[in-house]
């Protein structure tokens, strides 16, 4: 029998001690806190893949040692490698990007792309048809990923590019249009705006007005206004909505915001190494009373979507989001329904569950984030309206 040399024993012993310390520390903490061991639920039920995955996820999140070590490890990785965790990709000039959006843009699509596209198109067409059966028209709005509009802030390789649209996005839009579904092309709107805007850095393509926030995954106040104007214009051009008579004015409001991407890192030391973004937002207010814009629940136009509707509306400064600016363009108060991160499917399920939300509507404007084409929460099932 051969003996292991001492360095190898040390390495093996250290490795075993390291992996054992996680379980041992957790067991100790559980004993001190009077809890049963975390493994108990796994052993006292019928074993299944779902049960094991849930157990693993529970362990990852609840591990006492991991929760204490994670911030230090992340801080070290950020200092040495500029890595910001699983969800955030650091770009150039202090800009941050949401990893799923970057993956959407740069990764090849999985082999089942045709099936995925088919599901999306079927789900959207079924929703359009169900709305049409109720006499409601549907206008689709894809909120572009930040990486699609600012690829040059992600990598210097995209320096000369004003916007880049994944061919999967283009393909889905083309298939929807072939079925007669109206889609607002915000990609062209933002690309054109970026090209027209005066460059401030010697022609590198960075405009005086930025249409997305640096530390956030969402659009900036100028981006919201640009999108709102494009959507409202399409509604008017289609003749689906007539301009109303409401009088709205704009009121400047200073906003200081720690972006959602920075908050996602969940490490205080990393968060503190960035200054919160400060910018001017424009609130929509009543032209006479100066009261901030409020939705009209009885409006004939219902706007549904995700956090691209929420930003500046349910968050500071309020009355400054996409819906408020659309209302100003249309001179018509609108109604809205927001499902954070659930613009693709959860919002349709809400309407299916509560069809009274569609009573009295003639138009539904449906917004969802571009990345949902591939990464929608709950996928793209057909959801029938009852």
């Amino acid at each position, binding site marked *: *029998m051969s003996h292991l040399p001492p360095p190898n024993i040390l390495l093996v012993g250290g490795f075993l001690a390291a992996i054992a310390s996680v379980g041992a520390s957790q067991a100790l903490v559980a004993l001190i806190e009077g809890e*049963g*061991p975390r*493994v*108990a*639920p*796994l*052993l*006292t*039920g019928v074993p299944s*893949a*779902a*049960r094991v*995955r*849930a157990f693993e*996820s*529970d362990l990852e*999140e*609840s591990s006492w040692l991991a929760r204490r070590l994670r911030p230090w490890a992340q801080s070290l990785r950020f200092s040495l490698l500029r890595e910001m965790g699983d*969800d955030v990709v650091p770009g150039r000039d202090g800009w941050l990007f949401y990893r799923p959006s970057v993956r959407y843009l740069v990764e090849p699509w999985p082999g089942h792309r045709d099936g995925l596209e088919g599901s999306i198109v079927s789900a959207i067409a079924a929703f359009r048809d169900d709305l049409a059966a109720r006499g409601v028209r549907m206008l689709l709005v894809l909120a572009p990923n930040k990486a699609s509009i600012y690829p040059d802030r992600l990598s210097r390789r995209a320096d000369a590019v004003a916007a880049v649209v994944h061919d999967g996005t283009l393909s889905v839009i083309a298939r929807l249009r072939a079925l007669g579904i109206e889609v607002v092309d915000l990609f062209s709107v933002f690309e054109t705006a970026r090209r027209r805007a005066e460059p401030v850095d010697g022609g590198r393509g960075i405009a005086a007005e930025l249409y997305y926030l640096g530390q956030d*995954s969402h659009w900036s106040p100028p981006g919201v206004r640009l999108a709102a104007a494009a959507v409202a214009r399409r509604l008017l051009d289609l003749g689906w909505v007539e301009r109303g008579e409401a009088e709205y004015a704009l009121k400047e409001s200073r906003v200081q915001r720690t972006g*959602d991407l920075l*908050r*996602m890192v*969940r490490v205080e030391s990393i968060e503190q190494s960035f200054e919160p973004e400060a910018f001017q937002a424009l609130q929509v207010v009543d032209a006479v009373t100066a009261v901030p814009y409020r939705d009209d629940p009885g409006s004939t136009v219902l706007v549904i979507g995700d*956090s691209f509707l929420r930003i500046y509306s*349910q968050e500071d400064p309020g009355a400054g989001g996409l819906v408020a600016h659309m209302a100003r363009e249309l001179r018509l108060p609108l109604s809205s*329904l*927001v*499902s*954070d*991160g*659930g613009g693709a499917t*959860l919002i349709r*399920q*809400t309407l299916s*569950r*509560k069809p009274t939300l569609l009573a009295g509507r003639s138009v539904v404007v449906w917004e969802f984030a571009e990345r949902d084409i591939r990464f929608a*929460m*709950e996928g793209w*099932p057909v*959801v029938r309206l009852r």
Partner: protein
Amino acid sequence: MTAIRTERGLQGIAVALTAAAAVIGVSCRRQPAAPSAAGADSKVTELGSIEVTARLVEIPEGAIFKREMYDYATVLKYQVLEVHRGDVSEETIYIGHYNPFKPRSEAADRRVEGIGGNLEVFRAGQMHRMALEVPIDDYFMGGIVNKYFGRFEGPIYWAVWTDEAGE
């Protein structure tokens, strides 16, 4: 010969470890409390229009996940054990919990106020004593992750207060 002996040794260790873990797991399993008494605090008996003790039947894969960017509610399936207040006729009900990856004492925020409880972590098989409202859409407008969508006809309840009542 040595290899066979080592394999047997490893098998023995694996069996011993599994048996030990099973014994620990079973012995540390909490004894079920009598439903009518367990988990009754002043909040759960006062809040909401309905109060039940129910067993969490399962946690579907992907129903509870940590989500830093947005808030959501998830629908979980319960077997009703006792109705303390209100009218619940079904044996199985579906209840929406707000941000279920958080301990109930930390779940309330600026957007959803007034919810809570002493439950730390959701686990299948637990008994919960809950103060509820119904339907969920009257109390929470936001993302609702519902892995049972289209698989039941009844209403979705909204969990106002959730206390642990044993396993």
